[in-house]
């Protein structure tokens, strides 16, 4: 934290590589996170293109099944841990201090470290592709014993990489909690905080609670692989299903870690472009907290077919479907915010409205999956793949893209090219549905997930899905172009940027100066 009374005059302000390596500035670190996230999105996306190319037609065209499994595994891991989570943390770093009137994050040096672990962890993970025996090929859920006894040697590197990713996330989460609790400007009470800050504050608690559980799961894998333990092997008194319980105790809150900040982003954008206050602010906060709380109690709905006792299945079915109540409240609140507003549809609003529509579809398929007897059919099919891509791509990813368009003028001082932004939106919104909607049909017709080749009755919809996939993938290159173009120049953005924008971040100049709120603002 700066103790300077004047502007950064006495700071030595390194440039070039040193600036980025040693930075403790929340804006620099936010930028690093966002670029890292984008690079990972492109790598994970390239893998998705390869997967869709192999699935374009029946028969093995390009890859051996083992490498295909590696592709699906790495695609999942990279998108979850490399693209979505760091993307959200990047937004948090940039925006939370500016939204609560703080000069920086509470723990700036730790902030630097949280970020710089990531490129090393990701490199370690991706390097497994080039190791003897190939990369991890057991799915991003890495179920034992496929990931223990039957896994390639590179699995140990994967385990180490997950540990490093976990450190990074936990430190990031501690930083956010410390910042929100200690650094708010005078008058910024908890119940005045913007919803993006609220959702991240709650998400940070989820991270601290479950990342150690993930670390536990991979550590148990490691000792099962090399130190003679049998946590996940029945032959030594263990249980392979225990792995799934531990994994999903992490994994279910994890899906809310990815979506709650997205809820926050949407709750910022919709009121701005509706020129109307968010409907039901406090119910939004309570709904977020209830979702977070319930997320700890429903993990085994991923495991209805593992042979749980029927009482367990009933409990997890009831608890799971219950989550749809607070989630529905959120959708109703966004709808009510738009109702009788004065709407305009600049690019961020387009992405936000698409989020509300498409996330709702993903939410409903989630409700269907929660109904245990029906899940006996849906489980492990493309229906599940369609569901979680609707909530993660048209949910979390769309929210990140919306946030980038929304705050890019504040970050760069330039307006993005509105015409290109709209092309990017319509191209993505149409192709993403061509990509994922037919996967519902495939799953219901009986196509399992994670297969490199399929029977002929699945051919047609796979081809359509692949075509949509290629179109959606290409659209994101346009996004890269738009962002670079905006950084390099463009119409000067005003301080407020958007006519209906409210909040502290819009009171500072555009681009936001290197240090903001060195003197705390007064919030009334």
């Amino acid at each position, binding site marked *: 934290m700066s103790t300077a009374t004047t502007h950064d005059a006495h700071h030595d302000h390194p440039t070039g590589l040193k600036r980025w390596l040693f930075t403790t500035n929340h804006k620099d670190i936010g930028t690093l996170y966002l670029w890292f996230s984008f690079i990972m999105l492109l790598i994970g996306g390239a893998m998705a293109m390869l997967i869709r190319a192999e699935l374009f037609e029946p028969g093995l065209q390009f890859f051996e099944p083992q490498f295909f499994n590696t592709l699906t595994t790495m695609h999942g891991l990279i998108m979850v841990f490399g693209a979505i989570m760091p993307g959200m943390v990047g937004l948090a770093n940039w925006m939370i201090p500016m939204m609560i009137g703080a000069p920086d994050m509470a723990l700036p040096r730790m902030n630097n470290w949280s970020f710089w672990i990531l490129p090393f962890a990701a490199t370690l993970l991706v390097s497994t592709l080039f190791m003897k025996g190939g990369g991890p090929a057991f799915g991003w859920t890495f179920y034992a014993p496929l990931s223990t006894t039957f896994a390639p040697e590179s699995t140990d590197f994967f385990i180490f990489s997950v540990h490093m990713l976990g450190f990074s996330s936990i430190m990031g989460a501690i930083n956010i909690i410390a910042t929100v609790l200690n650094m708010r400007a005078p008058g910024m009470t908890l119940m005045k905080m913007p919803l993006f800050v609220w959702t991240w504050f709650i998400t940070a608690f989820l991270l601290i609670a479950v990342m150690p559980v993930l670390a536990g799961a991979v550590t148990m894998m490691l000792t099962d692989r090399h130190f003679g333990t049998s946590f996940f092997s029945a032959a030594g008194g263990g249980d392979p299903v225990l792995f799934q319980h531990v994994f999903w105790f992490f994994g279910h809150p994890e899906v809310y870690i990815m979506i709650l900040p997205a809820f926050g982003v949407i709750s910022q954008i919709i009121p701005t472009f509706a020129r109307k206050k968010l409907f039901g602010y406090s119910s939004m906060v309570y709904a977020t907290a209830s979702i977070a709380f319930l997320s700890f109690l429903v993990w085994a709905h991923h495991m209805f077919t593992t042979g749980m006792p029927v009482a367990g299945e009933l409990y997890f079915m009831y608890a799971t479907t219950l989550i749809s109540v607070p989630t529905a409240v959120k959708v109703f609140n966004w709808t009510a915010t738009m109702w*009788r507003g004065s709407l305009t549809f600049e690019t961020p609003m387009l992405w936000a409205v698409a989020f509300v529509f498409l996330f709702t579809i993903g939410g409903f398929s989630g409700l269907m999956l929660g109904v245990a007897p029906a899940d006996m059919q849906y489980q492990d099919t493309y229906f599940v793949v369609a569901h979680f891509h609707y909530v993660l791509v048209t949910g979390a990813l769309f929210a990140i893209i919306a946030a980038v368009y929304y705050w890019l003028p504040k970050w760069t001082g330039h307006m993005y090219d509105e015409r290109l932004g709209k092309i990017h939106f319509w191209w993505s919104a149409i192709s993403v549905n061509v990509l994922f909607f037919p996967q519902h049909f495939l799953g219901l017709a009986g196509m399992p997930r994670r297969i490199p080749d399929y029977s002929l009755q699945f051919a047609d919809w796979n081809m359509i899905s692949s075509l949509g996939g290629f179109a959606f993938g290409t659209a994101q290159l346009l996004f890269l172009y738009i962002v670079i173009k905006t950084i390099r120049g463009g119409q000067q953005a005003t301080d407020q940027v958007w006519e209906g924008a409210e909040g502290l971040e819009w009171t500072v100049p555009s681009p936001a100066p290197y240090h903001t709120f060195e003197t705390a603002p007064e919030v009334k």
Partner: protein
Amino acid sequence: MFAKKLRRALCGLWGAVILLGAGNTFAGFEQLNMTPGVTDISHRVYDLHMLIFKICVVICVGVFAVLIYSIIKHRKSKGAKPASFHESTTVEIIWTTIPFLILVGMAIPATKTLLALEDTRDADMSIQITGYQWKWKYDYLGEGISFFSTLATPRDEIENKAAKGENYLAEVDNPIVVPINKKIRFLITSNDVIHSWWVPALGWKQDAVPGFVNDAWAEVKEPGTYRGRCAELCGKDHGFMPIVLVAKTEEDYKAWVADQKAGAAAAEAASTQTLTKDELMQKGEQVYDKICAACHQAGGVGIPGVFPALKGSKIATGDRAAHLNIVLHGKTGTAMQAFGEQLNAVDLAAVITFERNAFGNNTGDVVQPSDIAAAK
């Protein structure tokens, strides 16, 4: 006017989709929904699925209608002025309570179906299903019938060197055969990793977990052939271990049981015969291609770091007893299974002879069925 245009546009789009479908040789656009299946349970699961689906569609249409109305009417460009309301406890309570009540309404039929689906008591017969990388084994408990079921689709079809048959990747050498109108209990387990046994027409899937036995049941109403697949990622050939279930009438089933028993006796008798090296090599190649090549690959080259090569390997060119031992008993902690219980003595003798003489491993060794019996 607008509606007419929209309808025409949609028809055009649909036509384009159908044309695209007609352009290739495959089918499948009509496959949009879950199968109602051929058991009571599968019908109930299907009905439940349709019920939740319809509820979701109705709510979706309601919410989307409000959103779309608002998007069209409440635009700034149409002169809309923002209203000032931003909270209402009454409204929040109403739209928390209504979804909750809908959920309770859904939970009732769901609970009933689940309880019926999990009730495996009072079965007429039991079949044990064991998942292996990458095949299924069926044991008819009390009947002494036991066999493996593996993919029957030729390699050339998978590698696009031959035209794909109608049941591409959905055909096996030995289907599981069950009688109709009998409550059959399936005891499901695994020999290596987790698999999941799934025939959609029965209405459920059940994971096969190594070291644990899960159960499920079905009572098939109609004779017929029902196809399914392994649903849990189980390694390299997860996509290549289909399931074919044939339901027969009581009489046909009894005839099938008698056939199986006669076949088993003939195989038993064959295990004492002596074969020539050529016969063993020829038979061994078939067994190798079907069973061993999945991991050790064609030509015995293996996959470096995952599956060891047999070409020039210490085991295949070294001590004969060690080779017999690893094939018969497997290697703990690896993907190498104990084939002593999977293959008969003739197949084992043939494949070991093949491995010791093919791929340039010219050891000249011959292994006879009697050697297998001795090594067991």
